[in-house]
């Protein structure tokens, strides 16, 4: 346990020591989105009865920041130590592949939660946000952070250079998070694009999370929870297989 705890602590400290870049920067980005989109669209769009567009936007931005940062935590730590070569100090230890996985996963969830909560705190200055089902909010936050943290571990194991990691981030993570309904309700899309959105796991994370605040969403939260939960378990299984086999880490 001490070994896993140490690795978890190190992963937390790693991002906390550069929190300007890892926490403050994403919060500022989310705020800029909030200012611009709410300014432009607030008078034109009302998604749910009695919910302003600005309020609608905040849970989406929180979740988007949470997801992106959970991914960034595990993936950047792994790619950096692979490129620098200091990953060898982890591989020389008696840590099991499960402990390795859990430490990286938990640290990624924590980073996501810290960033998500910070966006919330700052947004409270601008708008009142209801909290309909706090447990649902927390469940989706943890599962979403876990899902992206796991994906970050996969990307970190697979990528051999920063270039490949950037491709993973720009061609997979960014489009999936932007096209997930952060800025709009998918009901406002043409039927074809609504169907496409249903194939995007990010949509379920955002919609379920938002449901926790407003008590309403685009689809039933049970469905979202199932999709997110099953995706998380499936990705975790894949990651554990990769780590156990030593893929790209041990020859």
């Amino acid at each position, binding site marked *: 346990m*001490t070994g896993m*705890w140490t*690795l978890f*602590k190190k992963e937390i400290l790693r991002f906390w020591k550069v929190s300007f870049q890892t926490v403050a920067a994403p919060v500022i980005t989310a705020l800029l989105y909030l200012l611009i989109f709410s300014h432009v669209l607030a008078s034109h769009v009302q998604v749910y009865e009695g919910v302003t567009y600005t309020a609608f936007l905040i849970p989406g931005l929180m979740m988007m920041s949470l997801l992106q940062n959970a991914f960034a935590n595990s993936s950047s730590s792994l790619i950096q*130590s692979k490129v620098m070569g200091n990953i060898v*100090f982890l591989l*020389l230890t008696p840590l099991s592949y499960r402990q390795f996985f859990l430490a990286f996963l938990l640290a990624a969830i924590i980073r996501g939660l810290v960033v998500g909560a910070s966006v919330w705190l700052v947004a409270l200055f601008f708008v009142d946000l209801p909290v309909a089902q706090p447990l649902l909010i927390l469940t989706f936050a943890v599962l979403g952070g876990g899902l992206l943290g796991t994906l970050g571990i996969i990307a970190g194991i697979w990528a051999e250079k920063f270039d490949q990691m950037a491709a993973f981030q720009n061609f997979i993570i960014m489009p999936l998070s932007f096209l997930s309904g952060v800025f709009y309700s998918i009901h406002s899309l043409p039927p074809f694009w609504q169907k496409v959105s249903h194939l995007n796991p990010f949509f379920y994370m955002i919609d379920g999370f938002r449901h926790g605040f407003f008590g309403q969403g685009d689809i039933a939260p049970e469905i979202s929870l199932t999709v997110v939960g099953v995706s998380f378990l499936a990705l975790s299984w894949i990651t554990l297989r990769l780590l156990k086999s030593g893929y790209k880490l041990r*020859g």
Partner: protein
Amino acid sequence: MTPAIQIDQVHKSFGAFEALRGIDLTIAQGEFFALLGPNGAGKSTLINLLAGLLRPTSGKLSVMGHDVVNDYQSARRLLGVVPQELVFDPFFNVREMLRFQAGYFGLGKENDAWVDEVIESLGLTDKAYTNMRRLSGGMKRRALIAQALAHKPPVVVLDEPTAGVDVELRQMLWEFIKRLNREGHTIILTTHYLEEAETLCSRVAMLKQGKVVALDSTHNLLNRIPGKNLRLRLAATSLPASLTPLLRSQDEGHYTFALPEVAQIEFVLSELRNADIKVEDMELIEVDLEDVFMEIVRQ
């Protein structure tokens, strides 16, 4: 007594390339052992197999009786490896990093005293709170060694620890490593500086193309080549044909002859006199591990 390292019939292939071709090696506890060989002989592959960074294609390796694959957790606790490259974590200072490293091995605060001892012994006290990024090359090398020792492993493997290190630091490192050995740690080292292996190690294995080509005490290996080396500076561009079988090496007017018997000096000198070649300087040198090494690698 359980050997510190036991290697049985280990093969390792990378695709079609066979890096190790049936290595057998036993290293007893408390030995100071050298692993020598030209570049690409398989030294680092063998170390990486012991450390679990690579997996053997076939064969078995164990550290203090613990199999490095099936019982990897115990094996790794007993082994400290100093990697060849200067790798470091840019986020932390020396002391933080060493405590983390010990923590990965399951050690907590009770180990802090040992970490401090390692820091002090390696002359890192002034740098304990300096970020790894800001250390000079020599200091990084010390920190790297400290990192391998953070969990106090009884078996320590050093892969080219003195590559690119100045004389002073090299002396300091060897004093420290000799002390570890006296205190009971088994030391295994690979080095390109053969004189280091000669003065430090009691036993040597030489690797060539993935095979152990010599395994003996340093003393016996040195006795393999009888006689001495005669090094001459000659005012000549070519040698009499009768001397070429004795020639070991040649470099800008300096000729080194291997003489199985010292009495052969007379023969060499008379042949040179007959050929009217002037001897400008002369030196008689003991055979060293490098000669043995060259001899074995050549065979």
